[in-house]
């Protein structure tokens, strides 16, 4: 926990150079060591690449229209991930913070719900399984 006043530039990677955009919100989801009470040791993501790319882009473009934001981008990891590695990164740039927070959250939710990517969890007991949300 920290709070500080900085007399020098705050180095924060923000998107783009649009000077009308005053707010940037980003989200990183990363591999946790536990899921629903089971000890996780690694994750694997597999995507139906072509459709994932189309649907992911559709979500990002829809977010820009829906929330009147300036810019949005999303990266999703595929392959095998170690604990702590980033699975998804979403970044949104907009005029004000309301839309930035709402759009970023919306993109994360929509990507989880719509993009054809699947997750296999590897557990400490040697078992692994493809997750079936709501299944």
């Amino acid at each position, binding site marked *: 926990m920290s709070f500080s006043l900085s007399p020098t530039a705050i180095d924060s990677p923000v998107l783009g150079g649009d000077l009308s955009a005053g707010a940037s919100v980003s989200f990183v*989801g990363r591999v946790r060591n536990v899921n629903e009470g089971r000890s996780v040791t690694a994750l694997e993501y597999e995507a*139906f690449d072509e459709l994932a790319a189309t649907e992911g882009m559709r979500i990002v473009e829809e977010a820009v229209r829906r929330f009147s934001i300036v810019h949005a981008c999303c990266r999703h990891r595929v392959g095998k991930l170690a604990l702590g590695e980033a699975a998804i990164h979403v970044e949104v740039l907009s005029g004000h913070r309301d839309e930035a927070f709402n759009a970023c959250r919306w993109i*994360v939710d929509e990507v989880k719900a719509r993009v054809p990517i699947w997750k296999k969890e590897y557990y400490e007991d040697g078992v692994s399984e493809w997750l*079936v949300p*709501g299944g």
Partner: protein
Amino acid sequence: MKHVNVRFFAAFREAAGVSEADIATSAETLADLYGELRLKYGFALKEGQVKASRNLQFASLEETIQSGDRIVFLPPVAGG
């Protein structure tokens, strides 16, 4: 008989033991074809849990299939 290409991902890929297959089928719809594949490969998911893609677009399971179609059945997605 229709000849279609089916690609398998994730749990379907592991159950089928292959990433794709050229399949000859008399199935009318995507739902019919899923029923056939489910029997053949022992897929655990019921038809109601599955979505489909036909020629790189999302497709309703009610859609009729045609020879040459490139088909993917999608387990519930779990990205993020």
